C-alpha cells in the first residue's frame, strides 16, 4: 500500500477573476482521518469537488488513490466514496432500496450487495427499518444511511463534505465513532467540518483560509506550534464589558469571546490571573471565575486566522 492516498500539488481553481483555491499542496496518509477545516467560502468544497472529479482544476495536479484527477477521473470515481452535507438519498425510496440502488450503480454482485446491505443497515443502526422510506428517518439515521451508501462498494478513500451539519450532538458523536471504525479498517477518511470540536478526532488537520492552506498538522502539534502562551478563561456576567476592559491592556496578548466566556492569552498564568482580576475590579465588573484552560483548536483557529488578517497578507474574501 502506498504511504499516501491523496497527493495534492499546487492545485488551483479560478472562477473568472476569483481564485477559490490558490496553489494548494498537501498529502493525505493512507488510512488516516484527514480533517479539512475552514470557514464557508474558504475553498473546502471546491477542493473536494476537484479531488472527486466533479470539477476540473485550473492548474496543478493531484492523485487520488494513485489516479490523476484530471486524466483518469473515471478510475478516481471507482476508488472513492462521497457523501455531501445534503445526505443525498432518494427520499421516496426505502432504506433497503437506497442501498440496493447505490450498490447497483457501483456494480456490486447480487451476493456482494446482500452482504454489504446487511452490513450497512447494522452500521447505521437501522435494523427493522429496512422498509422505511428515507424521508421518514430522523436526521442522524439519514446521515448514517448516507454514509452506508457512500462506502457500500468498499472504497479505499471516502470524502465526507460537512457530514454532521444539522444533526443532534449524540448522533454527531456516534457518526464520528463510525468514522473512527472506517479509519481503523484501513479506509482513508477525508472530512470537512466547521465544528472545531470534531476536528479533535482527526489524525491530521489542514486549515484553509481564503483559498490557501493556513496551517496543518496533528491537533496536538498545531496547538503546540501556535499556542505558546497560557490561556485564561474568564467567566463574567458581562463578558462584553470585560472584553473591552482587558483587550486594551498591554499584557493581554490575545483576547476573544469564547461562547459566553472570554479567553485571554498571557505570558504567565499566575501573574495573568492577578492582572485580570485587578483590571476587572478597577472597571467594576464582577468576575465569577478566572482560570487556566487547555487550548482548543478554536484557539488555534483564531490565532492563525487573526494572525493572517493582521499581517494583511490575505485580503481576499471567499464567496
Amino acid at each position: 500500500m502506498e504511504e499516501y492516498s491523496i497527493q495534492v500539488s499546487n492545485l488551483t481553481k479560478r472562477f473568472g477573476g476569483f481564485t477559490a483555491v490558490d496553489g494548494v499542496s498537501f498529502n493525505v496518509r493512507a488510512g488516516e482521518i484527514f480533517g479539512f477545516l475552514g470557514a464557508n467560502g474558504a475553498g473546502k468544497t471546491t477542493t473536494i469537488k476537484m479531488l472527486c472529479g466533479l470539477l476540473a482544476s485550473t492548474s496543478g495536479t493531484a492523485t487520488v488513490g494513485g489516479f490523476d484527477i484530471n486524466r483518469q477521473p473515471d478510475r478516481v470515481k471507482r476508488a472513492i466514496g462521497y457523501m455531501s452535507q445534503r445526505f443525498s438519498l432518494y427520499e421516496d425510496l426505502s432504506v433497503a432500496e437506497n442501498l440496493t440502488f447505490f450498490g447497483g450503480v457501483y456494480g456490486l454482485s447480487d451476493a456482494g450487495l446482500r452482504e454489504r446491505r446487511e452490513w450497512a443497515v447494522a452500521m447505521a443502526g437501522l435494523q427493522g427499518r429496512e422498509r422505511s422510506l428515507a424521508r421518514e428517518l430522523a436526521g442522524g439515521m439519514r446521515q448514517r444511511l448516507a454514509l452506508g451508501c457512500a462506502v457500500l462498494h468498499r472504497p479505499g478513500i471516502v470524502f465526507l463534505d460537512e457530514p454532521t451539519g444539522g444533526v443532534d450532538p449524540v448522533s454527531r458523536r456516534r457518526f464520528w465513532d463510525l468514522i473512527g471504525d472506517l479509519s481503523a479498517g484501513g479506509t482513508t477518511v477525508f472530512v470537512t467540518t466547521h465544528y472545531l470540536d470534531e476536528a479533535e478526532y482527526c489524525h491530521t488537520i489542514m486549515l484553509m483560509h481564503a483559498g490557501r492552506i493556513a496551517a496543518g498538522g496533528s491537533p496536538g502539534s498545531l496547538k503546540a506550534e501556535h499556542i505558546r502562551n497560557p490561556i485564561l478563561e474568564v467567566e463574567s456576567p458581562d463578558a462584553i464589558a470585560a472584553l473591552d476592559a482587558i483587550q486594551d491592556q498591554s499584557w493581554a496578548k490575545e483576547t476573544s469571546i469564547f461562547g459566553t466566556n472570554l479567553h485571554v492569552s498571557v505570558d504567565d498564568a499566575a501573574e495573568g490571573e492577578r492582572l485580570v482580576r485587578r483590571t476587572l475590579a478597577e472597571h467594576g465588573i464582577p468576575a465569577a471565575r478566572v482560570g487556566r484552560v487547555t487550548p482548543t483548536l478554536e484557539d488555534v483557529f483564531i490565532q492563525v486566522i487573526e494572525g493572517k488578517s493582521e499581517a494583511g497578507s490575505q485580503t481576499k474574501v471567499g464567496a
Partner: protein
Amino acid sequence: MHNPNHIVPIIRKEFRQIRRDPRTMGILLFVPVFMLMMFGYALNFDVRHTPVAVLDLDRTPASRELWQQFGRTEFFDLRYWLRDQREIDRLLGTERARLAVVIPPGYGADLAAGRSPAVQFIVDGANSNAATAVLGSLEAMMQQHSLRLTAERILRRGGSRVALPLDYRPRVWFNPELKSAKFLIPGLIGFILMVVAVISTTLSIVREKERGTMEQLAVSPVTPLELVAGKTAPYVLIALLSTTMILLLGAWLFEVRVAGSLLLLYGVTLVFILAALGMGIMISTLADTQQVAFMIAVIATMLPSYILSGFVFPIRNMPLPVQLITYLVPGRYYLVCIRAIILKGAGLEAFWPQVLALCAFAAMMLGAAAVRIRMKKL
C-alpha cells in the same frame, strides 16, 4: 461505454419512484384520459341541433311546408314560432335561437303565381365556425327545396317526369359521418405524448438536481449518458402505454378504430417519443429547479403541439411565416403519419417523407442533448 449493469438499477429505481409519486402517476395516467374526454366530447366542431325561430307571416300550406323542412334534419331544431319581428332580436340576442326564418306575407300566393318570393334567414354570426356550418346546411336544404318546387311546378303544368340535370351523390371517405372526434383523436395522441413525455422526463431529471442526488451520481462510475438512458427508458414504456390507452378508449367511446398497421403505428410513435425525450432532456439541462423546468416544458410543448401541429387548425390555412415555423414542430410530421394510419389505413409509402423528418428531428434532439450532457451541463 454503456454498461447495462449501470443502466438497469437506474431503470428499476425510476420505476419505483414513479410508482410512489402520486403526482407523476397522475400526470401519466389521468391527464391522457382527461384530455381524451375534453377533446372528444367538448371540442366538437360538428354543428347539430341549431335552435330555429320561425316568423311565418304568410300562414299558408306552402309556407308551412317551407319551415317544416327544418324539423326533418338533425342539423336544426324548430323551437320558436313567433308573431312579431321584434322577438327575433330578443331570441338571437340571448342565444336561445341561432337562426331565424322570416316568411313574408304573400309567399304562398307568389309561389303559386310562378314568381320567386324572397325569404329572409337571419343567422347568429358571433361564432364564425358555427355560422359557416349553419349557412352550409341552410343553403343545401333550401336548394333542394327549390328544386322540388321547380319539379312540382313543371309537373303541374303538365310536364312528364322531370329528370334533374345533375345527379349529386356525395360520398365521404375515411370519416363518413364527418365526426370531428375521428379527426381529433389521432392528433390527440400526438399532443398528449408530447406534453406527457417532455414534462415527465424533464421533471425526473431536474428533481435529481434539486435534491442533490445528481451530485451523488456524478461522483459514481455512472456516465451521464447511461444516467439519461436509464432515466428515460421507463418513460418510453409509459408513453407507449398511454398511446395504447388512448387507442382503446378512442375505439370504445368514439369508435375510432385503427384502419392500418399497428406495427407501423407503434414504430412511428416510438420515433416521435424519442424526439420528445430529446426535447425533455434538453430542457432539463437548462433548468435547475422543477418549477422552471415545468414552465419551460409547458411553453415548449403545449402551444406548439396544440396550434402549430395541425392538431386542430389546418396548417395550410395559416399565414406563410407561421407555416414555416410549423416545420420545427415534430407533431406536424407525426400527425400526418398517425392520421394516415388510423383513419386511412395507409402504408409507409403514403407518408415516408414525414417519417424521415421525424427521424431527423429525433436524431438532432438526442444528439444535441448528448452534447449538452457531455459538457456537464446536466
